[in-house]
């Protein structure tokens, strides 16, 4: 029913806005990409496509409506890579296209010829440290939310043999990156460098925080000769790039992902409405139970204080349309001796 008693909000003093960053820890264990749901490489939570340009990882068999998309895996190389033009290379154009698609969106073009920039394992984009062959992890927006928090990324890769990939591991982190330093800004947002801090402290990849993408160098897997193994034999990571499809290469990649973790960031913009309830108002109610035979129930004589109990705050437009409702968790007593300020926050 129509409300007839309103209190106006002073747009200068009663309404303010705030911005809050919320972070969640996202641990993505390697078992989820290999062996938890079905038998590798035909895991039920791994979705392959007929185009074979990438494969998707879900947290549950992807045919289930309960499954959530976690990330996609792909590989690619620059057309100037030594392996480009190799004899009998499998899906060459698709691999080049994947690399270029990532780099043109995240890094853009450069020079008078508008060449696509190349990923570099540093923050200078000066042409040194170019990463011509890459393995990509594209995280779903569902888990990165607005962006990955800088300085929180950890990727642990198995660098052991095909049979026991995690007998040796390499842990990459972006510990040198923070909100204020250690990152470079590009078309695709900020990126930081992933270092192996345990041993040689060398860079092996980059992470794009807003885009939610990790590009790893093939050097992450060192010189292991059995990066991939199938009935045809074993192959190093570079040979896998040449002789195997993208799907087979990403199968080999996820066979060696032991752990990925980071903190995501959700930016919440809030409007705060300070609803100031004066001492001399809102002490009576139109609630039908407020009266008994037209007599105010909470009073015995005129001089008794009127009392009401607030449970709800309605926020209205100028034409009295109810735009938002806030509920108190318990009734709040209001009488002429108290003046209340109720702080209502709407998040967007």
């Amino acid at each position, binding site marked *: 029913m129509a409300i007839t008693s309103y209190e106006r909000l002073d747009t200068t003093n009663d309404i303010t806005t705030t911005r809050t960053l919320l972070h969640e820890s996202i641990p993505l264990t390697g078992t989820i990409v290999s062996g938890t749901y079905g038998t590798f490489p035909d895991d039920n939570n791994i979705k392959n496509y007929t185009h074979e340009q990438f494969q998707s990882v879900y947290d549950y068999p992807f045919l289930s409506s309960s499954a959530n998309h976690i990330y996609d895996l792909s590989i690619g190389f620059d057309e100037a890579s030594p392996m480009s033009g190799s004899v009998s290379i499998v899906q060459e154009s698709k691999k080049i296209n994947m690399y270029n698609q990532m780099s043109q969106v995240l890094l853009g073009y450069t020079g008078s010829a508008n060449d696509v920039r190349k990923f570099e394992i540093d923050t200078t984009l000066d042409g040194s440290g170019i990463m011509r062959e890459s393995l990509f992890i594209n995280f779903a927006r569902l888990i990165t939310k607005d962006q990955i928090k800088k300085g929180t990324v950890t990727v642990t890769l198995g660098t052991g043999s095909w049979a026991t990939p995690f007998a040796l591991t390499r842990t990459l982190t972006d510990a040198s990156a923070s909100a204020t330093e250690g990152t470079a800004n590009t078309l695709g947002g900020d990126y930081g460098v992933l270092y192996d801090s345990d041993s040689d402290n060398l860079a092996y990849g980059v992470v794009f925080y807003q885009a939610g993408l990790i590009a790893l160098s093939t050097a992450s897997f060192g010189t292991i000769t059995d990066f991939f193994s199938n009935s045809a034999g074993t192959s190093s990571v570079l040979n896998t790039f040449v002789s195997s499809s993208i799907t087979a290469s990403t199968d080999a990649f996820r066979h060696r992902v032991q752990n990925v973790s980071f903190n995501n960031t959700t930016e919440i913009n809030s409007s705060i*409405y300070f609803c100031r309830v004066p001492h001399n108002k809102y002490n009576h109610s*139109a609630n039908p139970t407020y009266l008994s035979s037209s007599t105010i129930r909470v009073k015995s*004589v005129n001089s008794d204080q009127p009392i009401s109990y607030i449970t709800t*705050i309605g926020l*209205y437009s100028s034409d009295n349309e109810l735009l*938002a409702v806030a509920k108190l*968790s*318990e009734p709040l007593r209001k009488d002429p001796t108290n003046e209340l300020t109720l702080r*209502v926050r709407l998040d967007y």
Partner: protein
Amino acid sequence: MGFLDNSGDIILDAVLTEAGRRRMAQGSFRIVKFALGDDEIDYSLYNKNHPSGSAYYDLEILQTPIFEAFTQVNAGINYGLLSTTATDLLYLPSIKTNEKSQMASKTLAIRSSGSSGLFLLTDSSNDTSTTSISSVLDTDSIESIDGFAPQTAVLVETGLDTGVGQIPAGSDSNRQSLLVSNGLIDNKLIISYDSRFISGIKGLDSQSSVANNATSNQINASLSLTDGTRTSINSGLENYNTVNVVGIKNSIAQTTSPNTEADFSSISGPRGVMAAVAPVIKQGLDAEYSLYGGTSTVGATAVKFIDTTIYVQGSTSNTQLQIPFRILKLS
């Protein structure tokens, strides 16, 4: 619709309503005022006689569990707290329908139908040259309003209904001191009606008058109907429109030799205003009877009906009343 966790600090659970989200999409979301509600509270739980003292009077009220916020506009605040600044009020107006037989026989008032409490509206669209819905009702002495051209109405009264023989008495001086002086006279009443079935509301003409000051303190009423004024007030109810109707001074008062106030008024105490509610039904209601209504019989005659509720609200006191109506036509 769960309850909020009330085991710790007081928290506020805020949500946008459907209208809020629509306004966001339209780019016209702008909050400029607020109102307060207490719909969950049952004030009858306030125990002024609690043996442990005044600190315990509102113990049960303060333990009332509160629902989570929900997004339907009409589920926000139905009654609301009042912004009146007076602190010495002991009484607030109530609103009631007037179904006094003497008013029904001497004025345009009608009474509800039997024990159902429904007020009847006739839809003559299925009347024949030999049978009409009005005549069927008249045969059974059932009062009704002509739905297309109302000449009768439901009368409503506001006032302090403190009870027969109770104080304050229904005198004009008490009306002045307890209602007029405290700004509790509803010169307009807000009527909300379902626009799917009803096209408008007729209320009393502002020149109408009512008093019990004729010979032997009998009723002296001059009541005539006019169209209510359409308003943009949002009732918060889907499909409902609102009109304002006039509340005329209710001069029925306590008299002596004889005291006839109870013969003509359903308010036992100082009276505020009287108003009329005469709905005008929409032309061409047909499929609505099967969609929203049903079938029944009046005597031996088969009829179709639609039940609908009309809400009456004092524009000043905010006192509210729901009036159930039944629209009837021959099958």
